[in-house]
């Protein structure tokens, strides 16, 4: 290979590599749909805390070290919610939303995204606390505890057992409508930019 071929060839190859580098460094790509809008559901609620207690059997008690032999075992958890989402009267989601944390005793986080075509859409959301029968008793007990820790403050911040939203949205291209919980108004609201 003569020197000139090497210089030209080597130079060309280096430039091609460079162009490829520059090109791949900023190559456009469509991440979600090309033209699309989105309804995003995102809120956090502390939910309703319940304590569930049961009596230990004599056998269970016998297995425990003497200083740990308490009659009742109690576990606190946050009641789940049922989330039903309808977009333009089509059922898009019907799911139980459970509290976070391994023991379901942390706050509840809702985060869902529903892509939509730009335009007018009817959005209806139902978010309802689910209480299992038999828990009422325990709830009363939790209620009693609550009274001990500042009833007025709690009552003011307590979240409703059911949140509903039924509205019509007009979304432009690539617009995101955020459905979130407004703690002051204690209801679901739509937030746009």
């Amino acid at each position, binding site marked *: *290979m003569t020197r000139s071929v*090497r210089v030209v*060839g*080597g130079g060309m*190859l*280096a430039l091609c590599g*460079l*162009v490829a*580098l*520059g090109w*791949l*460094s*900023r*190559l*456009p*790509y*469509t*991440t*979600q*749909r*090309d*033209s*699309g*809008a*989105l309804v*995003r559901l*995102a*809120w*956090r609620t502390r939910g309703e805390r319940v304590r569930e207690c049961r009596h230990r059997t004599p056998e269970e008690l016998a297995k425990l070290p003497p200083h740990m032999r308490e009659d009742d075992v109690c576990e606190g958890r946050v009641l789940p919610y049922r989330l039903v989402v309808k977009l333009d009267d089509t059922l898009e989601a019907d799911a139980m939303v459970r509290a*976070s*944390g*391994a023991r379901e005793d*942390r*706050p509840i*986080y809702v*985060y869902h995204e529903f*892509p939509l075509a730009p335009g007018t859409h009817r959005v209806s959301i139902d978010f309802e606390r689910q209480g299992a029968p038999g828990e009422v008793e325990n709830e009363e007990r939790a209620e009693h505890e609550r009274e001990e820790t500042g009833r007025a403050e709690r009552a003011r911040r307590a979240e409703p057992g059911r949140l509903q939203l039924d509205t019509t949205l007009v979304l432009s291209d*690539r*617009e*995101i409508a*955020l459905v*979130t919980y407004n703690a002051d108004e204690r209801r679901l609201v739509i*937030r*746009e*930019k």
Partner: protein
Amino acid sequence: MTSRSPTRRVLTHLDAWMNRLYGWRWNPLYQSGTLVVALLAVLLVTGIYLLLFYRLGLPYASVVRITDQVWVGRWIRGLHRFASDAAVVAAAIHALRLLIQKRSWGPRTLAWVAGLILLFLIFVCGWTGYVMVWDIQGEVLAREGARLLDAIPIFSEPISRTFVGERPIPGAFFFLNLFVHVALPIGLGVLLWIHVSRVARPALLPPRGLMWGAIGLLFLISVVWPIGMSPPADLFRTPGRAEFDWFYAFWLPVVKAVPVWAAWAGGGAVSLALLLTPIWSRPRATARPAPSFVDAQLCTGCEQCYQDCPYEAISMIARPGRAGAAPESDLAAKSEFVAHVDPSLCVSCGICAGSCAPMGVGPPGRTGRDQLSGARAFAAEWNGKAPAVVIAGCTRSAGAAHGRPMFDGVPVLPVNCAGNLHTSVIEYLLRSGAGGVLVVSCPPRDCWNREGPKWLEQRMHHDREAELQERVDRRRVRLVHVAEGQPELVASALAQFRSEIEALERAAAEAAIDVMHECEPPVTAEEVP
């Protein structure tokens, strides 16, 4: 013809073409590891400048401001970006080469694993760097990263909530991101040190011309094709079509399309396969080359192998039993120290075999003594008719790579690595009647054992210990560096060397007749085209 994996054949061809274009000294494929180090240095310098102008409270606007500095900021930002892209490419080539060359197991396991972590940290630096800009790409990367991290049940609050738009993004997020981006390079430095901790005299930077050439090219593209600004991140708009840096965002289309568990499972499987490479890529136990051993009877304690070993596998230890030996005993007369090979560090490169004048060290079957008996058998095949030239070729270079017993009519003595070759073998071949010995090694930067050609050259021409004896006529020995894929260069070197040897023989024959030269002098080496 020895069998080669298809990947190895592709690499051989690529290397050969790069050598043709740039010469082996500047072949960027050979220098991929050192280029990464050079690029990391560029990132450090340009990064410090960018940091001066970056504002945590105004991420996007401050990057716009840097980009608007037409004379400095814009190209520095470009250089920072393109150097990080090139670093990923170079690191990938470096890793792939080592994998194809099967230098990915045994004592190299530490380097392999540390290298993978290095590469991963470079990616994390890149991702956080893009999040710093807080344009659409930054937002998409942040969201996707958050989605993946939220699958790990250790965060009290899902990270994804940061980007839903319920409230402004907290400053702590940008702070943490910047902290990771700036702190990781320190970790990179430590890891690089670990990465090369098992190699002696690591070559950390490429030859200057190549390094500045590469940086110059990146500078050129930063100026000629500067990077602009994508639209800013917007929590209330879907990203739509946006520009991405595919060297860092290559995984996005796949990961976005699958459920989070599948992304973790896929990523986990790939990572595991890469991390376990030292296990799955190693040869079967029976096919693994054995580590070196020292024959303490022969070792004179000269320390040469200890200095030459490219993997620091040799130490000098007190000669066993000598301390209590009677003063007049054989043992007491021997050196105080002997070489000792740590088998867990030895890659069986055999370079120590070439280092040891008394032939006391080397992998089994490949010590200086073994090489000499191999050379004897090789010479015996000439049947008394010594060839004008013989080739002693590394089995990985073009010298003996193709496994043929003859190259252009010249007998070939295969050597495991040119650095193994004991100089007394060269002398023996000449004494057995060969007119000249052409030694063919790999290009020094591509020696699989790192330092073979370097040490051999010093032993042949610069009196490095275990040197080629002074009595050997240097005109009859030649060392050339030729990559596996360029046998044509061996052919031309051979033709040249052969004609020089023929000229020598002619001159010797004429001198033997002892006639007066009144006509033209014999052709000299320089005149041979």
